[in-house]
């Protein structure tokens, strides 16, 4: 059968024409891949920036939170609270006592 029937296709497209089509498709593929890679790179850079900014913001907020806690702890120490609740005269007495009680060497 192979010798009786034609092996060529019934279209007018010659080799040169098909070669051009193949070349065109090759160029388009390379261009698409280039665009895809670059847009992917842009996304990676953007995502990195967002991550860095996000992480920094979280770290800073944790830091500020800690500082606030330290400040609150310092302000609300038991001695301060105790002294704050005492009447003025008692406070001075106590302070005086402490100061007077310190021996001098």
């Amino acid at each position: 059968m192979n010798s009786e029937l034609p092996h060529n296709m019934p279209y007018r497209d010659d080799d040169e024409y098909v070669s051009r089509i193949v070349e065109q498709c090759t160029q388009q593929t390379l261009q698409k891949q280039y665009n895809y890679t670059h847009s992917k790179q842009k996304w990676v850079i953007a995502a990195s920036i967002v991550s860095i900014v996000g992480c920094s913001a979280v770290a800073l907020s944790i830091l500020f939170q800690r500082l606030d806690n330290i400040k609150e702890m310092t302000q609300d120490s038991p001695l301060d609270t105790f002294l704050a609740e005492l009447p003025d005269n008692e406070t001075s007495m106590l302070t005086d006592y402490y100061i007077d009680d310190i021996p001098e060497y």
Partner: protein
Amino acid sequence: MDIIADDKTIVQMLIKPDLRETGFKMLTHKYGQRLYWHIRRIVVSHNDAEDVLQNTFIKIFSNISTFRGDCELLSWIYKIATNEALHLLRSHTRFFQSIDTLNYSLSEQLITETDLPPNAPEVLLQQALLKLPTQQRIAFNMRYFDNLPYEQIAEITGKNIGTLKTNYHYAVEKIATYITENSAL
């Protein structure tokens, strides 16, 4: 691009980022036309063949790192091209419709894309092929037009060699009958 490298070199080039583009151009230079005709025989329309060729190239370029070399490069790219062509044909069908139902419209498409008279041997052969089930037609094309060995066609289609040989034999009989009946018209 007149250098035709062997498949192993092309694959190695495609894997290396700095040689990828050159490797890809070599691959398309070596197999591009064959791929185009393989696709065109399945989808018939030139515009569809061009789209499928483009998608095939993109798939090859994007997935070359997954090519393990268990089969020949030609088999791998033919498999991608065949799948892409079948995917396009499926997109032309409705839900649950077989792609074989497209054969009539493909046959009409063939007439519009040729300058030859309907009883020209080339046209009659293609018309006869479009009477075959799609999978059988693809296997026949690869054996008859591309001269691929049955082992390679089996790799591409995933079919048994014995089945392919039987299908080819029946396809030849059907084609001969069709041409005998229609060439005198």
